[in-house]
């Protein structure tokens, strides 16, 4: 086996400030695992980083098809990293389909690593290639490294005793070894990890390690026309780190939030992509008293959570847009009976089934406005995987202190992506303990806290506080059914005011990057945080007068936001939808904001945001 295109080896590594690498292969090629390992090694090497796992809708798409391509992207660097990167600096294509799908993302001149062993006629045809791109000069714009990884892997593990099929499955480790060499990563933790993972099947562990080492060795020894890269350590806030996905951080944050409220948490949900991981994570947290209930549908999930809140627990439910649609009637009841409820929405591309595995931010309307009647609720949005932890705690605080449903918006990108996370010390968080009503004298269930307007929460089982609640309008003064006009007016206004009161308990909106006034404010929310903050920073570095404001509280909005926005000449609102926060801001503040809207199932690229900012500043 020779490595045909490799040439002379130059003396020392090229230094890069940051690099974007994308691993792409067949669903069965283990790209997510490869990416995960590379992420860990990169974190250990002291880089800041962000990742983007991008897998197909199909469980196991037929081998070699374009729709079966699974990819994992990582951006890492010596500076702080805000997104998983725009164009790739390096693309690993394990088969023709991966090349076909991913090539357009590789920057001109970028490094293209190809497993030639998979470029046979059959695979080329499946990928829709008429001619072999390795032979028709169509890849001339890139720096290509072609390796018969399949063959080299077989060679490396030939003594392992594995079947051919199993042996070939080590391809990804071979590739990882090679890429480790490319970026000067340490193999030891991966080797340890493999031994631990396959403790019961040592022959598999050793074969994978052999492949890893062989890939690495090829980099070290072969004669290549590039030297490998070095990405120096980033300046990172000191402390203990781990990687965390949005789904993990959400699970932790909700459970911690309930513990800060000092009540047990009940989680009723129904699986749906990309929200299911939250259910999976919480299902493994039983020792913390978390009850998880996989209901028969989204309606039952929401209703069970409301039932739990009625019984004195913190009811939480989760889904994605189409499932949340089903919950809205029940959420209306929670609004009417004023019980705590957290509705996590991990947004995905729609309408309808849409593109379940692709990300979008298009459920803001649904969250803020999407119910019958005057049904005000609280809406929060997380900006990044790690931020999910903080936002979840905030949701628990508001839900229990204000006896109200709270929507917590995440999205497919945040949910699946992982980032390094400075692990918080849970003991430093303020408690916000629930005080169940116990006084029987003068009790009725719609007694209110005069400050917040939250109603009294009395737990079934408490003698002397027996009461009945329901969705019919209630008398302000007794909690009994009431159909009188004045009372309905008063109750409607009270519900509205209660939600408005939440704004009194949240911090003033700050400016993420830039000044508190100026030419242009870019107002983002949710997962656009990365590209927007990077783009604004880049252009400020160029001297442009642009600032970045990023909202966590979508409803009610922070009290100072209107005033803050009025300090800028222009406002630009980038969203992965057709302009939903835009509507809210324009309606609230009459601010002549414009939208930057991308609805492609993919995060913004930094360059897209930069271009829009330039346009806005120039026009």
């Amino acid at each position: 086996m020779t490595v045909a295109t490799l040439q002379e080896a130059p003396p020392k590594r090229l230094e890069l400030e940051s690099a974007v690498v994308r691993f792409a292969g067949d669903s069965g090629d283990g790209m997510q695992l490869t990416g995960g390992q590379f992420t860990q090694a990169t974190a250990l090497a002291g880089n800041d980083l962000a990742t983007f796992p991008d897998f197909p809708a199909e469980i196991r798409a037929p081998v070699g098809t374009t729709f079966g391509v699974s990819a994992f992207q990582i951006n890492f660097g010596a500076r702080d990293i805000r997104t998983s990167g725009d164009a790739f600096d390096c693309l690993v294509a394990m088969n023709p389909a991966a090349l076909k799908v991913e090539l357009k993302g590789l920057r001109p001149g970028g490094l293209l690593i190809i497993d030639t062993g998979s470029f046979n006629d059959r695979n080329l045809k499946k990928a829709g290639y008429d001619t072999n791109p390795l032979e028709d000069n169509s890849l001339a714009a890139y720096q290509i490294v072609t390796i018969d990884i399949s063959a080299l892997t077989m060679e490396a593990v030939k003594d392992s005793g594995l079947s051919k099929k199993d042996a070939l499955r080590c391809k990804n480790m071979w590739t990882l070894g090679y890429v480790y060499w490319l970026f000067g990563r340490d193999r030891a933790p991966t080797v340890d990890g493999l031994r631990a993972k396959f403790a019961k099947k040592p022959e598999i562990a050793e074969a994978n390690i052999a492949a890893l080492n062989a890939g690495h060795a090829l980099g070290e020894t072969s004669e290549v026309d590039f030297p490998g890269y070095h990405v120096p350590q980033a300046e990172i806030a000191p402390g203990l780190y781990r990687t965390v996905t949005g789904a993990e951080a959400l699970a932790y944050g909700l459970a911690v939030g309930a513990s800060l409220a000092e009540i047990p948490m009940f989680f009723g949900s129904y699986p749906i992509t990309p929200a299911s991981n939250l259910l999976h994570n919480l299902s493994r947290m039983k020792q913390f008293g978390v009850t998880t209930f996989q209901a028969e549908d989204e309606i039952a999930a929401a209703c069970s959570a409301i039932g739990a809140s009625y019984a004195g627990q913190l009811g939480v439910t989760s889904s994605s847009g189409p499932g949340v649609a089903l919950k809205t009637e029940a959420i209306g009841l929670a609004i009417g009976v004023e019980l705590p409820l957290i509705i996590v929405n991990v947004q995905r591309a729609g309408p309808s089934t849409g593109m379940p595995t692709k990300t979008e931010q298009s459920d803001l309307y649904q969250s803020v406005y999407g119910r019958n009647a005057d049904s005000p609720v609280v809406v929060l949005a997380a900006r990044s995987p790690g931020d999910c932890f903080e936002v979840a705690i905030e949701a628990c605080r508001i839900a229990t202190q204000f006896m109200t449903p709270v929507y917590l918006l995440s999205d497919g990108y945040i949910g699946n992506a992982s980032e390094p996370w400075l692990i918080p010390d849970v003991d430093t968080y303020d408690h916000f303990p629930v005080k169940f009503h116990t006084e029987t004298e003068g009790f009725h269930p719609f007694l209110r806290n005069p400050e917040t307007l939250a109603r009294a929460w009395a737990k079934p089982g408490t003698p002397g506080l027996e009461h009945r609640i329901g969705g019919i309008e209630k008398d302000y003064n007794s909690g009994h059914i009431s159909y009188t006009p004045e009372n309905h007016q008063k109750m409607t206004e009270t519900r509205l005011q209660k939600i408005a009161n939440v704004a009194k308990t949240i911090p003033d909106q700050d400016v993420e990057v830039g000044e508190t006034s100026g030419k242009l404010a870019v107002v983002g929310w949710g997962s656009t945080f990365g590209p927007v903050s990077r783009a604004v920073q880049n252009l400020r570095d160029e001297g442009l007068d642009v600032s970045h404001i990023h909202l966590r509280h979508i409803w009610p909005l922070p009290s100072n936001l209107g005033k803050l926005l009025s300090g800028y000449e222009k406002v630009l609102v980038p969203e992965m939808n057709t302009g939903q926060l835009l509507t809210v801001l324009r309606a609230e503040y009459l601010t002549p904001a414009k939208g930057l809207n991308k609805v492609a199932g993919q995060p913004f690229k930094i360059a897209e945001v930069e271009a829009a900012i330039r346009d806005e500043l120039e026009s």
Partner: protein
Amino acid sequence: MNAVTQKEKLTAKDFATDQEVRWCPGCGDYAILKAMQKAMADMGQSTEDNVFVSGIGCAARFPYYMATYGFHTIHGRAPAFATGIKLSNPDLNVWVVGGDGDMLSIGANHLMHVLRRNVDLQVLLFNNEIYGLTKGQYSPTSREGTRSPSTPLGSVDRPIDACTYALGAGATFIARGIDSQQKHLPGIFQAASEHKGASFVEVLQNCIVYNDGVFNEFTDRDVAADRQVHVEAGKPLIYGADGNKGIRLNLQTLSLEEVVIGENGVTEADLLVHDPSNRTLAGMLAAMNGRELPVALGVLYCSQEATYEAAVHDQINAAKQSAKITSFNDLLRTGHTWVAGG
């Protein structure tokens, strides 16, 4: 431990609220309410440990009139709310109340799931074969040909039988009663409450406004004895004004038939003996509807199985006991971590 103060046993009246009852005068729901209040007193229940959860409909107003905890929720979903309540606090005795529309039209799926999971609740379905609250449209239990505002020429749907459905859904306790039978109904409620697991009780209820007399063919005074059989565990299926009618299994057709003791050589020994643990028998009893055969009343089926909430809490408790990581700070620090910066 503190000495427990002996509470005074409550009377039926203690279970009534001060709320004006808003059903139509003459509605069968009044009788059911009365039977329930009696059953609660009979059982020595407390007001604070019982929760009535309901959907929407005339039947579903029930919780307002019980001096216990109560939650009047949304149409069709009461079983799901009740599941959340019971899982959150298994010490509560949780009742679910709804009409035939609530439970068998919009809500039959939740009903099925609560029954198959065997959550320890009592589900009471007040079947008046009509939508009362929305003014009289036909329901999934309405007989074919029912004329109603939405079926002015008569309905053409085949109705569903509540008990048969519950059996297919995997219920572990199935009973049937009639609103006006104050002699039987409290006992049925009590049996349901005592059953560990999901108990399903169908109460045939007369809607005096929109479906008056729909059960007359077996409730009318002059036919009742001949058209009703009250089943009791271990007793033969005997009924009739003269106490000489019985139900026999026809082995050729594998179906039930009415026989008269003393006629054609039939003796009591030929009759079926009620065995509440037999699903096949329960299926045949549930199908008896007062037309060809008398309607079967009482506990048709009962089988003791593990309850859902107990199993869920067993898992949680086991997880707590065997947990190695017990603080959130430790949990957050599991897996791969590294120190950076500084």
